[in-house]
């Protein structure tokens, strides 16, 4: 273990899962966030004589993991997804047998041509990461995941390892059923993190949120994440915080930034060059900083599972950490609006179909289905939803449109019904989250209840409903004062940069 990954011991669950995987069993592993899920397949990938395929839903996460593995000396690893430039992809596909660990996106995997490449390989392990995406009742449902069983069959049933950090018993059953592996061995571990205390605070307005955050970050010199749902608010808050806290290094991070700039921020955070990051949910996937002490939510996500994941980035080293939620009465409406915009309205879909039909009858060139967002002014998630639905009913096949009026009439009702179902489901999830925030009962127990029956004792304080006292929370300060630097000193900085300080 140490030899491969510089870890000195297994964490809870890893050993059991890895041992079953190495014995060729099909395994479902549910491990809490921050428990090193990826080791469960990275280590077997090193050890088995053959290829490991990992299906991962987020391309950015996939790319980060490949970078980290390469940095750690695991070189024969590659990420395949539709963003790979064509020439690069051809180069990789022609040398596919030189890789041990292959990450693929579910979309990429759907193409018959791609499957044929994989069929040539001695696949010894098929990993479904973030397996809750299989389930309609999982919060990040990805329809492509529901067709994975076909791929597994095409690959002649290699051992399957499905992993998730957030799967309720219902979702677990869905995963096993969808993968068509009833004999799958389950390794389910409790989600609760006993070193994180929860602290909910109702405020009157956004201004008060900012003041509260400034207070907290002023008194605690520890690495902190502050979550937002709006990129703009994240940016603005970062700027006003750094004005209020000249001694702290504050940055922002969101999906709208260029990849290389994002990487800089991530790495500086790892290096303790930055201590406070104002971010959206785009941050944190694949981040392995062990000593984050504070996770503050300026905005809440849209369901409990996401909250558990985000707050779970705190205290991975087991030291006492706090999750703070700041909310006010207006927040719910903001969230409800976001939920609404995540799905397209049926009017939008009608309009799209009408446009396509007109284009077809007048022989105008259509953009490909992957680019249907060009035809409509909708967000990516909604566009993806439409794509998948049309695919499901055969109105899009192999990246081509197959639409006529009759077909559309035939499938429209089904889509309307499904839309309503999804909308209701998402609203339920949102209500569940806000019920939790406003509960008078123990926050820890209410949060984890859907996932497990028993709870560990908190190592320190429990939650604001059980009586949380900031005075009793004294984490070790991690930051030195930054050195004052003036442009006049650039030569000294350059010497340090080039390791010449001893000269």
């Amino acid at each position, binding site marked *: 273990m140490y030899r491969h990954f510089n870890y000195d011991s297994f964490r809870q669950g890893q050993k059991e899962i890895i041992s079953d995987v190495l014995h060729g069993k099909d395994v479902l592993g549910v491990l809490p966030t921050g428990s090193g899920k990826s080791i469960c397949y990275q280590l077997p990938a090193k050890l088995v004589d053959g290829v490991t395929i990992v299906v991962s839903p987020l391309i950015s996460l996939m790319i980060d993991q490949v*970078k*980290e593995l390469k*940095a*750690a*000396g695991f070189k024969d690893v590659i990420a395949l997804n539709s963003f790979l430039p064509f020439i*690069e992809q051809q180069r990789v596909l022609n040398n596919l047998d030189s890789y041990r660990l292959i990450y693929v996106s579910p979309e990429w995997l759907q193409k018959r041509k791609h499957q044929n490449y994989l069929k040539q390989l001695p696949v010894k392990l098929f990993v479904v990461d973030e397996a809750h995406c299989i389930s309609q009742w999982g919060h990040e449902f990805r329809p492509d995941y529901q067709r994975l069983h076909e791929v597994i069959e095409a690959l002649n049933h290699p051992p399957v390892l499905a992993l998730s950090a957030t799967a309720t018993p219902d979702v677990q059953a869905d995963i096993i059923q969808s993968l068509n592996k009833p004999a799958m061995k389950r390794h389910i571990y409790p989600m609760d993190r006993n070193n994180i205390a929860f602290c909910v605070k109702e405020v009157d307005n956004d201004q008060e949120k900012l003041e509260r955050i400034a207070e907290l970050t002023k008194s605690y010199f520890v690495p902190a994440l502050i979550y937002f749902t709006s990129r703009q608010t994240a940016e603005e808050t970062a*700027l006003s915080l*750094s004005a209020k806290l000249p001694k702290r290094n504050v*940055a*922002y991070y969101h999906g709208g*930034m*260029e990849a*290389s*700039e994002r*990487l*800089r*921020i991530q*790495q*500086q955070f790892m*290096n303790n*060059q930055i201590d406070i990051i104002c971010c959206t949910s785009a941050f944190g996937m694949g981040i392995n900083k062990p000593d984050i002490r504070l996770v503050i939510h300026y905005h809440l996500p849209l369901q409990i599972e996401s909250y558990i994941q985000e707050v779970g980035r705190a205290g991975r080293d087991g030291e006492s950490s706090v999750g703070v939620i700041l909310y006010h009465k207006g927040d719910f409406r903001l969230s409800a609006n976001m939920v609404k915009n995540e799905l397209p309205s049926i009017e939008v879909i009608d309009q799209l179909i009408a446009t396509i039909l007109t284009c077809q009858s007048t022989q105008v060139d259509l953009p490909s289905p992957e680019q249907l967002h060009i035809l409509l002014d909708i967000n990516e998630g909604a566009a993806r939803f439409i794509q998948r639905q049309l695919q499901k009913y055969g109105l899009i096949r192999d990246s081509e449109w197959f639409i006529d009026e009759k077909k559309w009439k035939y499938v429209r009702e089904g889509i309307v019904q499904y839309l309503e179902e999804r909308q209701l489901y998402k609203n339920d999830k949102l209500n569940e989250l806000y019920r939790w925030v406003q509960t008078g009962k123990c926050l820890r127990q209410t949060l984890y209840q859907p996932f497990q029956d028993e709870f560990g004792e908190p190592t320190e304080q429990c939650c604001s409903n059980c009586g949380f006292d900031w005075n009793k929370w004294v984490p070790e300060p991690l930051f030195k004062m930054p050195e004052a*630097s*003036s*442009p*006049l*000193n*650039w*030569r000294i*900085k*350059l*010497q*340090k*940069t*080039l*390791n*010449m300080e001893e*000269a």
Partner: protein
Amino acid sequence: MLFQGILVDCFQKINQERTSSSVYNLLIGKKAIQTIQDARFYHIADYYGIYPGLAKDDYRIQLNQLIELDYLREDNEKKLQITKKGRSWLASCKTNLDGFAGAKYANVMETFKQRLLLFIQTITNTSKKQYLFIPISDNYEVEQFVKGFYKQYKQRSKEVLHQLYKELEKALSGLSDLEASMFVDRITSYYSYGSSLQQLSQDYQLSIPDCFLILQKGFYRLLRVQEYDNDYPMLRLFTKNLAISDTPLSQTAQLTLRLLQKKHSFKEIMQIRRLKANTIQDHLVEIAMHEAEFPFFDYLDSAIYEEIKEVVHSKQTYRLKEIKNNVNPDISYFQIRLALVLYNK
């Protein structure tokens, strides 16, 4: 300020003869004949491709600000013109605008930059026995280059770092302290992970485009000194196998050039390439700009050339339409364009 200065400078130089999107194309380094030609004619080639990632929206926002500040004004044809206020403002910040060499290093810049930065990250980490780090660049070619380079020098890392310091220190001394300091902050090494543009913008209280352009200026300076001065052997190694030339001929024009060199006629080239006359003419203009030797007088006789030259002088314009209206109707746009290339040679 720097970005705005560059914009105002461009609009002053093109003198309402081009649209605002032609300046945008210039800054992002569009490989279109028109853009390359504009860069030459209006003496703004130094700005060619200095801001490849510039978003069209950000560009518009800046222009609107300049209009609001009354440095630029929109004329009837929606073309931007510099105002009196803009002129005097530009004069006051003139010195800052020097130091770019966009067209000259258009092929080289990005790769040079990435090679240098990735090498510094690699050698500073490994010389501290730190072999695990996430590379700042994942461009395959750059990675291969740095790998090879690193293998060659890893035994002498101390010496290499010393030499790099000497060269960077000397080169950056030619910039202002602020510019040099920003450049150093951007470098990722063992000691620290380089600042993002947002951070530089905060630290130096300058806009993000200004920070980006100041960094670019630093790299142009490195490219220039290594080319003209023998004190920079190390930096010169990072330009290895990169053709420093003006913006390259497009692939399609290269093919036409090859046919031309084989003495095929215009008609034959059209037939062989199955392209329209217009397209081949575009190629010829492009070739005329690039090649030292071009048979201008196969396409226009000296009388025509003199006539066009005359109009350029009397009307003080490079605008094709205006020239066309003032010369013999038999003279084609193609001939005017060639004449302009010749005139600027």
